[in-house]
């Protein structure tokens, strides 16, 4: 005659829910999940928290966004209007800016309006109220892009914007 006490059904359910029917397979699944997550968040997606107001109102300070590192892999290049992450000496600190000028173009900001090769640029993503920023014409080199934040209501002197080397672009902000 067998003796002993059966475990309560709730404990069985917790055990089945947390480690599954086969602990060995659960362990393998966890290991695969860790490896895949590590690879995805190291080589494909980057999570970045905005720590400045330069991209407001599109990207608000304190919010977290996803950068797709593979957006410009292969033959695809940054396009006008893309929001991109620009690295510094590494990827711990990055600038998040919008591309408004492409290689070879001449960019000028006149009374708050961006001109590309002399023609005014339509920027529907900008708030109506903006400051009268001015930047003399600058001709971009073959590998250069012109980037700027969406917050044009702040003082021009407090806003970091201008030419960047295209090799500094880490990826495109997708969310």
């Amino acid at each position: 005659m067998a003796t002993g006490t059966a475990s309560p059904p709730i404990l069985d359910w917790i055990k089945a829910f947390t480690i599954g029917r086969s602990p060995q397979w659960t362990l393998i699944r966890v290991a695969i999940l860790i490896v895949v997550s590590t690879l995805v968040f190291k080589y494909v997606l980057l999570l970045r928290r905005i720590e400045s107001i330069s991209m407001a109102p599109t990207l608000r300070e304190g919010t977290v966004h996803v950068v797709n590192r593979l957006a410009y892999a292969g033959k695809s290049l940054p396009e006008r209007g893309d929001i991109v992450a620009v690295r510094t000496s590494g990827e711990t600190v990055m600038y998040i800016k919008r591309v408004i000028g492409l290689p070879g173009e001449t960019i000028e900001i006149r009374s708050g309006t961006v001109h590309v090769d002399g023609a005014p640029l339509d920027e529907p993503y900008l708030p109506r109220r903006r400051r009268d920023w001015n930047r003399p014409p600058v001709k971009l080199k073959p590998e250069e892009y012109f980037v700027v934040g969406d917050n044009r209501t702040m003082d021009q002197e407090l806003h970091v914007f201008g030419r960047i080397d295209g090799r500094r672009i880490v990826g495109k902000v997708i969310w």
Partner: protein
Amino acid sequence: MKRRLTLSVVLAALALAGVLWWQSDPEAREIRRIQKRLTDLAAEVSFAEGESVLNRLSYPTRVAAFFTDPTHLEIPRDEADAKGSYTRIQIEQILTGVRATRRGLHVTFFDIRVELTESSRASAHLTSRIESAGDRDYWIQEFRLELTRQDGAWSIERLEGIRTIE
């Protein structure tokens, strides 16, 4: 089961060998020394309100000790414009000014990339985040440095600010 155990032991041994090799590589060790030296510089440059008088008085000498005499500085910023060759005394004077005009300063270096050009010369590229007490904004600045080994310690002989976006 036995095969799996053998595989685990082999993998662990390989990982250990890799770590030991990396630790014993003289170039990697020297690079880590330079990175630590620069991290120490960031800590020395930083100061808070209410520090002791001794700390405050020794600040310029402690920080200037990280630089050669003279040092070439190129910092094209309105707030801290410096361009040219500066003697140790001039650097101490600049630091005295920095200490006197700010209530506190917090400097952090990120992504310190070091390259040994010769056995006693190296170049470094880093990003700094500089926060001044009382200011809501902070200053992000990339620097390129040239270092030389003098009496066993690495000293900065050239410090150049780089504009990420210009």
